[in-house]
């Protein structure tokens, strides 16, 4: 069995995670730490200790805004933001998404849209996210209703695309996806 820290390194989190000395600088500068169930400092420690379930089911990995403030300040060169991204990719791969189901559904829908059109298309992105998000019907409806005012705002400013911009050579883009899948499967 691979340890969690090995998995994180393979997924792009960097060897330097092992060098963390728990100073807390990362947490101090983190804009969303107050809302996380474990702070960035705690997450790094928990990864090093192999607390797989608690880390992957935490809200922290989805509340990380990838702002890189922690990473540029860490005195030990720990790539905290990259560790968070690596954890998200492991959680998505293993289907562990209950903490914040909309965020992983959004990321996956985002890529499905690229595979379909080659570019992003917001109206379909939102609908796909709602369909994919593992939450109750009431929560899905609430989400849709919550998005409506923004939709109206964007329509009024003539900024809501009504037709998808498509890549002509879409088979090239799909080839990228199948190549990436093959490489990930090889590990």
């Amino acid at each position, binding site marked *: 069995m691979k340890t969690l820290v090995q998995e994180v390194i393979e997924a792009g989190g960097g060897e330097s995670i092992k060098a963390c000395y728990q100073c807390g600088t990362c947490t101090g500068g983190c*804009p969303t730490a107050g809302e996380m169930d474990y702070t960035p400092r705690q997450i790094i420690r928990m990864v090093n200790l192999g607390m797989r379930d608690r880390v992957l089911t935490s809200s922290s990995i989805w509340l990380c805004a990838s702002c890189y403030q922690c990473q540029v300040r860490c005195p030990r060169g720990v790539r905290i933001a990259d560790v968070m991204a690596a954890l998200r990719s492991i959680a998505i791969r293993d289907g562990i998404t209950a903490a914040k189901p909309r965020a992983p559904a959004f990321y996956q829908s985002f890529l499905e849209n690229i595979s379909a059109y080659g570019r992003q298309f917001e109206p379909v992105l939102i609908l796909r996210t709602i369909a994919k998000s593992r939450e109750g019907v009431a929560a899905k409806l609430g989400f849709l209703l919550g998005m409506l005012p923004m939709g109206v705002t964007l329509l009024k400013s003539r900024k809501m695309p009504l037709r998808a911009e498509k890549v002509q050579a879409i088979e090239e883009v799909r080839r990228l996806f199948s190549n990436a899948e093959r490489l990930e499967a090889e590990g």
Partner: protein
Amino acid sequence: MSQRYAYYPGCSLEASAVEYDLSTRSVLKALGVELEEIPDWSCCGASAGHAVSKSIALALPARDLAKAESMGRNVLAPCPACYKNLRYVRESLSDEEARRKVERLLEGTGLSLSGSSEVRHLLEVLAGDVGAERIAEAVTVPLEGLKVVTYYGCYITRPGGMRSFDDPVEPVSMDLLCRAVGAAVLPFTRKTRCCGAPVMMSAPEEMHRLSYEILQEAKQRGAEAVVVACPLCHHALDAAQPEIEKHHGALSMPVLYITQLLGLALGLNPFEELGLDRNVVSTEGIVKRFSKVTCSR
């Protein structure tokens, strides 16, 4: 002295950030910089690529960068997230293992990547390649008396842990550009504090809180506008401002793209060339002060 770039607009600039695309094209044209759009470009994967797998995060921007290379040009990207992703692929090429990986990711597409094209952010081109002096010379309507704060956000100053063209703690590129066209840049402590846009899905109230803090400080300091160079920051600060106001109280703070601000000073048409009627928070007061064209249609 003509400068040419392979232009990578990115998906936002075709949708919620149309005014950024329009004003970028107009301002660069006025400055004699030539943009040639990368033909049939595809999405860079934004933050979703990295969230799903390292391979897809490399593969998507690799296609665009390979296309730019065949144009024999450096890339200009106005969106800091695209800029970061394209640069990430290019800088990965210096690692032999990653280079082989990229080669395999491009298999069957007929494309190849050598790293010959550099990736530049719009601000880097404006403040560096073009330069504040040349922009100052082109000014026809100095923005005298206009008080602004500059907001850089995350990926301009911290592009995914890579080195930035600007200072990560005290960035200056946008400040220099604003001053070059006569605007007054006020001190601002939240220049590089995250706007929260990336947690829009997981915690919208967090995004609103972080954006509110930025807008509130701008207001307290007496700014008449916040100037940005990122479509995501613009979305969080401008398009979501009515939503923020519902929770935190009135703000009415215009948020302009740097190119909209520069374009006004260059005497460009505020609507047809700069899209200042597409911002959600009204820019009317500023347009009336600095342009004779006051009706959008």
